């Protein structure tokens, strides 16, 4: 058996091993170790995409499927793993050093820290980032319900600490609130898993899916599904439960958010897609339990209220956060429709969302830096940065000729075809509101006079135009994985 046949599990093992290796390497090499391990992961993912044929199954420890833990890679999660690893590489290359400087600034203000301690703290930061990445990769790769829960907790624990590291002490309160709410959400997922286990007697996704039709009418199963979905929506930060996201992200380091904010939203929506479409009996949920109507109504209310809050928000970061919450609302609306095409649209929408969100958070760094320092004579604000901002904000506002626009049109068409007229109308109306608050972002950028060339923010915007060309192919390929 050659080494590469184990590659599904390497996606989780490599970040964990690299994280522990960081403890033993010199501090100036730790940054390069992270970059190296992420590059290895990316090459493994590309290899995986190359040999992918329908699905790749991997049994941990050689225990076959229903007994042991199984990892399964298909056209839905293998590309997602590649995207997430690329995101980490991008974050490290673009803002890794700025996170670094925040860390140093924070340590300098605290007395009594020796030089050795400072080095250890920088190592701790990379350690946490890699553990978070391992957790996220595990959530995406696994095919086992309980394993999913364990990886959710691994990722969450790393997130709590990363969000608490900030020069603003209010970040601590946001982080501890997130810890409480996040743990409650994860416990609901655990409860759902337990209830599904009682009726189906299995934890493997495929095995549960095979036994689901005979037990779906049991109230216990329905309660289990309901608590799992509630936990996922909490992790996703959907409207009534979105306050943790705003509180935790408002004072956190913007550099860390470029990785955490997009990845956590795409991964939690992936979790929901995997559970609803691949584990539950989706047709039963739609026909007998009003799942579609439920998701449509929650999504509609979420979109209206978060768009309103985005209009009222004052700072650049608040507008970005509420607009992110509104995007999650649109994504939830998509779950209302029972069609395999919609699943592709959700993933494509999430992809467009993370590409704009990354750029927006890099802009947050630029704006907040320029707000804290006044502009000296002889230094002019960066025009290139203005140009980039306009491209990114137009994409966020879903102006025609951007990926966001194409995705919104797709969602609108499908909603209309399934006669969800009210959500469709709300979607159009809030998209007009989106113009208003994105205009506010542009105004803030114009006033802020950002000095530095954050050219690296351009990359995701350019990639989003590349994705635009292949959008239909992505939707079809992902839609084909269900059936």
């Amino acid at each position: 058996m050659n080494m590469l046949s184990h590659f599904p599990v390497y996606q989780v093992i490599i970040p964990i091993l690299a994280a522990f290796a960081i403890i033993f390497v010199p501090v100036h090499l730790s940054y390069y170790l992270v970059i190296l391990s992420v590059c290895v992961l990316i090459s493994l993912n590309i290899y995986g995409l190359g040999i992918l044929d329908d699905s790749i199954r991997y049994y941990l420890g050689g225990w076959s499927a229903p007994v042991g833990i199984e990892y399964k890679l298909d056209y839905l999660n293998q590309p997602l793993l590649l995207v997430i690893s690329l995101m980490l590489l991008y974050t490290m290359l673009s803002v890794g050093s700025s996170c670094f400087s925040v860390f140093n600034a924070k340590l300098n203000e605290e007395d009594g820290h020796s030089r050795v301690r400072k080095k250890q703290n920088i190592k701790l930061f990379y350690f946490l980032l890699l553990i978070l990445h391992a957790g996220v990769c595990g959530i995406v790769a696994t095919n086992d319900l309980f394993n999913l829960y364990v990886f959710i907790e691994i990722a969450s624990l790393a997130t709590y600490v990363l969000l608490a590291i900030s020069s603003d002490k209010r970040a601590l309160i946001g982080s501890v609130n997130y810890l409480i709410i996040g743990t409650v959400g994860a416990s609901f997922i655990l409860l759902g898993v337990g209830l599904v286990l009682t009726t189906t007697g299995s934890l493997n996704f495929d095995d549960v899916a095979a036994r689901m039709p005979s037990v779906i009418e049991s109230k216990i199963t329905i309660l289990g599904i309901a608590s799992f979905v509630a936990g996922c929506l909490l992790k996703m930060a959907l409207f009534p439960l979105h306050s943790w996201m705003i509180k935790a992200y408002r004072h956190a380091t913007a550099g860390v958010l470029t990785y955490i904010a997009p990845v956590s939203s795409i991964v939690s929506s992936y979790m929901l897609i995997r559970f609803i479409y691949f584990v539950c009996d989706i047709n039963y949920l739609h026909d007998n339990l009003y799942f579609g109507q439920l998701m449509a109504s929650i999504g509609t209310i979420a979109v209206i209220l978060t768009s309103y809050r985005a209009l009222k928000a004052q700072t650049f970061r608040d507008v970005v956060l509420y607009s992110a919450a509104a995007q999650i609302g649109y994504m939830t609306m998509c779950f209302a429709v029972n069609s395999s095409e919609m699943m592709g649209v959700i993933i494509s929408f999430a992809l467009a969302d993370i590409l704009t969100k990354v750029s927006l958070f890099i802009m947050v760094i630029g704006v907040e830096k320029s707000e804290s320092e006044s502009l000296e004579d002889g230094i002019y604000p960066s025009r290139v940065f203005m140009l980039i901002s306009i491209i990114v904000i137009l994409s966020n506002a879903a102006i025609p000729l951007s990926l966001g626009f194409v995705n919104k049109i797709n969602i609108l068409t499908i909603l209309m075809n399934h006669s969800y007229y009210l959500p469709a109308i709300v979607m159009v109306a809030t998209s007009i509101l989106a113009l208003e608050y994105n205009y506010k972002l542009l105004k803030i950028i114009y006033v802020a006079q950002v000095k530095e060339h954050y050219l690296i923010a351009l990359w995701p915007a350019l990639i989003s135009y590349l994705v635009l060309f292949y959008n239909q192919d992505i939707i079809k390929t992902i839609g084909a994985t269900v059936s």
Partner: protein
Amino acid sequence: MLFGNFIFAAAAILLVIGLMIILVRDSYFIKMIGLAIFQNSMLLFYIAIAKISNGVPPIDQLKPMVYSSPLPHVLMLTAIVVGFATLAVGFALIKRIYRKYTTINASELEL
């Protein structure tokens, strides 16, 4: 029958008590204790679903017998570790909050 399902009711009561403490109490320290109670209700629930009436532990039995499912017990070993780690991180954050603000009451911190 009543006593057969009593343990599930107990788990549900613990769950509600835990949530209630998290929502009502002001101090973050007590909120974390509520969180611990909430998580432990899950442990109780999982242990309860493993039990089969007249079931014995599947250890060192030579003849065929009815045994309780060992799977939920194994799962809960992991969940205990996860709960412990969450509490540890939570208390570490609270200690840090106390050092910065000299209070850990939610009402005084939300200014």
